[in-house]
C-alpha cells in the first residue's frame, strides 16, 4: 500500500494553494486545540465528583468576553477572506501568450487537441514553464476537468466554452480526473497530463503527425457548411463580416450590448434568433442540426483567428 498523504505540487497555482492551505490548516488546528482544551479543562476542573465548593468562582456572564470573541472571529473571517481572495484574483486570467489546448469532454472520455492539431484521447502533452489555456466543451452532460497536481478544476458545461489555465513547473505525468458526476463510468473518465522539459517536449512534438489545427478545420467548415456564402466579403446578402469580430463590443437590435466572446459566437451559430446584431435582419439559419459535435468549436476557433489576423495586420 502506498503511504502518501499529499498530492504532488506541479504548477504555479499549486504553490500558492499549498501556502494558503498550510496556513488555514495551522489556524484550524489551533482552534480545535483551543476548543478541545477548553472543554477538557473545564470538564476536569468543574466535574461534580470533585465536589469542591465553588463560591470563589466568578460569574462568567460577561458581555465583554462575548464582544471580545465575536470581534476576534470577525477579524479572522475577514482576514482569511482577504488573504485567500488575493490569491484567487491573481489566478483568474491566463498570462498573455498562453498556449491553447482544446478539450472535448463526453461520456466518458477526454478528446484533446494540441495547438499543433495533434489529437489524443485522455492525454495531454505540455511543456514545463509555459502557461497553457485549456478550452473546454462538453458534448453531453456536465463534466469537470480536474488535475490535482496542478490544483485546478473547471466544470465543463454543455452549451458553453469554459476555460482554465495552468503552468506546469515540474516534469512528470499527472492524473486528470472528471470531478463532476456524469453517469455510469464517471470513475473511469480519467486521463493524464504529461508535462515535459522543453527539450523532451520539442522531440515529442516532432514525432507527432501534425494534425489539422482546430482553426484550420474551422476554415474548411466555414466554406463547406455555407457560412461563407453570406459572411464572405463581397457577398450580396446583408450579413456582418466576421473579421475582427472576436472580442469586440456588439450592439444588439434590442439595444443591449454584448461582448463577442466564445459563448456569444456559439449561441449565434446554434441559436441565431437569440441575439440579433443591430442593423441586420434575423435571416441566419439555425445550424444546430447541421453541425456535428466539435464542429462549432472549430468554427469559433477559426473566427478567433480572423481577429488575430486583423490585429496583426
Amino acid at each position, binding site marked *: 500500500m502506498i503511504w502518501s498523504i*499529499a498530492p504532488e505540487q506541479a504548477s504555479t497555482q499549486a504553490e500558492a494553494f499549498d501556502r494558503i492551505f498550510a496556513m488555514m490548516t495551522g489556524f484550524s488546528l489551533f482552534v480545535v486545540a483551543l476548543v478541545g482544551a477548553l472543554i477538557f479543562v473545564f470538564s476536569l476542573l*468543574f466535574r461534580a465528583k470533585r465536589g469542591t465548593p465553588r463560591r470563589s468562582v466568578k460569574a462568567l456572564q460577561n458581555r465583554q468576553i462575548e464582544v471580545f470573541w465575536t470581534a476576534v472571529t470577525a477579524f479572522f473571517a475577514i482576514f482569511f477572506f482577504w488573504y485567500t481572495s488575493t490569491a484567487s484574483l491573481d489566478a483568474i486570467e491566463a498570462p498573455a501568450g498562453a498556449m491553447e489546448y482544446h478539450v472535448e469532454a463526453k461520456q466518458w472520455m477526454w478528446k484533446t487537441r494540441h495547438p499543433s492539431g495533434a489529437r489524443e484521447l485522455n492525454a495531454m502533452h505540455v511543456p514545463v514553464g509555459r502557461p497553457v489555456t485549456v478550452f473546454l466543451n462538453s458534448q453531453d452532460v456536465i463534466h469537470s476537468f480536474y488535475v490535482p497536481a496542478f490544483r485546478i*478544476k473547471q466544470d465543463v458545461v454543455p452549451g458553453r466554452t469554459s476555460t482554465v489555465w495552468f503552468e506546469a513547473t515540474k516534469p512528470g505525468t499527472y492524473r486528470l480526473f472528471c470531478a463532476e458526476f456524469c453517469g455510469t463510468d464517471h470513475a473511469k473518465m480519467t486521463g493524464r497530463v504529461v508535462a515535459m522539459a522543453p527539450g523532451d517536449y520539442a522531440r515529442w512534438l516532432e514525432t507527432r503527425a501534425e494534425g489539422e489545427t482546430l482553426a484550420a478545420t474551422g476554415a474548411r467548415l466555414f466554406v463547406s457548411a455555407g457560412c461563407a456564402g453570406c459572411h464572405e466579403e463581397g457577398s450580396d446578402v446583408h450579413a456582418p463580416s466576421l473579421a475582427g469580430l472576436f472580442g469586440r463590443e456588439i450592439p444588439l437590435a434590442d439595444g443591449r450590448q454584448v461582448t463577442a466572446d466564445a459563448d456569444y459566437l456559439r449561441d449565434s451559430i446554434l441559436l441565431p434568433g437569440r441575439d440579433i446584431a443591430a442593423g441586420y435582419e434575423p435571416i441566419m439559419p439555425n445550424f444546430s442540426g447541421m453541425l456535428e459535435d466539435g464542429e462549432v468549436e472549430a468554427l469559433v476557433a477559426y473566427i478567433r483567428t480572423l481577429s488575430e489576423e486583423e490585429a496583426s495586420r
Partner: protein
Amino acid sequence: MSLTDTEGHIAQEPDYLGAGHSVRSWLLTTDHKRIGILYLVTLVFFFLVGGAAATAVRLELATPPGDLVSPDTYNRLFTLHGVIMVWFFLVPAVPSTLGNFLLPLAIGARDMAFPKLNLASWYINLAGGMLALAALLLGGVDTGWTFYTPYSSLYSNSYVTLAALGVFVAGFSTIATGLNFIVTVHTQRCEGLTWMRLPLFVWALYATSVVIVLATPALAIALMMVVLERVFGLGLFDPAQGGDPILFQHIFWFYSHPAVYIMILPGFGVVSEVLTCFSRRKIFGYEAMVFAILGISIFGFFVWGHHMFVSGQSATASLVFSLLSFLIAIPSAIKVFNWSATLYGGHITFEASMLYALGFVGLFTLGGLTGLFLASVPIDVHVHDTYFVVAHFHYIMVGGMVSAFFAGLHFWWPKISGRMYSELWARLAALLMFVGFNFTFFPQFILGYMGMPRRYHSYPPEFEMWNVLSSAGAVILAVAYLMPFVYFGVSVLRGPRAGDNPWQARGLEWQTASPPPRENFGRLPTVTGGPYDYHAQGEEPHAREGDVTFPGRSDSERR
C-alpha cells in the same frame, strides 16, 4: 407537580402510551406525542435503509478496483444513501420526532396548534418516502442526491421522476410541520413564557421552521422543472434548446444551503438543553445564542453560490459568496465558544447524553472550520467535489447532527418512555460512536486533499490506504449505531421507572409525569423566570441531588 406514588410509579389516569392500544388508536391519533413516536418509527426505518446503502458503498471502496458491484449499482447506492439520509432522516430527525414530542411540552401547551395537520404531515412524509422507495425497488436512481441537470433531466436512465416526486411530496410534509411549529410557538405558549424566556431548543425549532417554510418551495420548483424536462422535454436546462444547465444549480442550492441549516439548527437547540442540565449552569450568553440562531437562518439564504465556484460563475459573484460564507462562520463560532463557556463553573456529570453533546461541540467545530477552507475560492477549486467536501459535511451532519439527535434521544428517553436505560452501555455507545466516526471520516479529509474525486466507483492505488482506514472505521461506527437498539429495547421491556425528572432538569417538559398524560399537564404551568435556572444569578450551581454516580446503573437493574 409530581403525580407519582412513593415508589415512583405513576398513579394517575393513563399516560399517552396507555391511552389506547389498538393500531387504530395510533394511526388516527392527533396527540403530538404519539405522532412523534410514529415519526420515530419511520425515521429509524429510513436510517437503516440509508445505513445499509452506506455500508455497501464503504465495502466497495475498501479496495481500489470496482469489484464488488457494477458501476451502475454503485451509483444507485450512493444516490439512495444521499436521498434517504438527507430528506428522510436528517431533515425530519429532530424536528419531527423530538420536536413533535417536546415542543408543546416545552412551552406548556396541551398540543400543537393544528393537531390534525400534524398527523397529515406524517402521512405525507410516508407517501413521499414510499415513492422514493418505489424508485429504489424498481431499479434505483443514479443522479446523486443533488439531481444535477442535464444529467438528471436528459441523460439518466433511472427512476429520476419517481424519486424527485417522492422528495417533492415529502417537502410538503416538512412545510406543514414547519407551519405548525411556527403557529404553535406564536399562539400556544403558557402564561409568562415570553419570547426571551424560551428554551433555546424552542428557538431553534422556530428558526428551523421559518427556514423550512421559506426554502422548501425552491426545492419543489427545482425538482418540478427536472420532471417537466424529463417528461415533456421542456428544454429548461437543455442548451440545445436555449436552456441553461446551471440554472438548476442556482435554484437547488438556494434551497439546499439553507437546508443544511434546517438539518443542524435543531441540533444546536438540543445540545444547549443537554449541556446546561448536566453542567448545572445557565447557558452562557442566552441572547447571543438566540441572535446567532436567527442570524444563521437569515444569512444562510445568501451563500448558495459557494457550491458553484468552479461551475463558471463570474469571479465577482464567487468573491461575494466567499465573503458571505466567511461571515456566516461568525455566529457559528459564537455558539461554540458559548457552549464551552457554559461548562465554566459548573457541576458537571458525564451521562451518555452529555457525552454526545460534548462530542457534538468538538465535531461541529472541526466541520465548521473545514467550511472555511471551502469558503475560500482557491482552496475550493482544488477540493470541490472531492472527498474533502464529503468529510466536511459528514462532520457537521453525522458528527454534529446525528450526535445531537442521540444526545436528545438519551436525554428525553425517560420522558418519552417513562423508563431508564443502561447508562453504562449508553456511555459506551457514545464513546464508540465518537471514535468510529473520526476513524471513518477523518481519512476522507486527507483523501480529498490528495485529490480523490467523490462519487468514484473505483480509484487509483495511491488512495487505497486512507480508504481502507475509512472502511474499517465504518465497521466500528455501524456497531455503535446498533447498540442503542439493544439497550433501548431492554429499557422498554424492563427498564427501571424513570420518575418525572430523573436529571433534575429545569425545562417545563420535566414538570409533568413521565410518560406525560394525554393532555400533557394537569393545570398548565406558569412561568416566572428565564430558562436554565440551575442556579440563582451570581450564585454557584447546585450539584444534582442524590447519586452523582449515575442513576440507572447501580440500583437500576431491578425494576
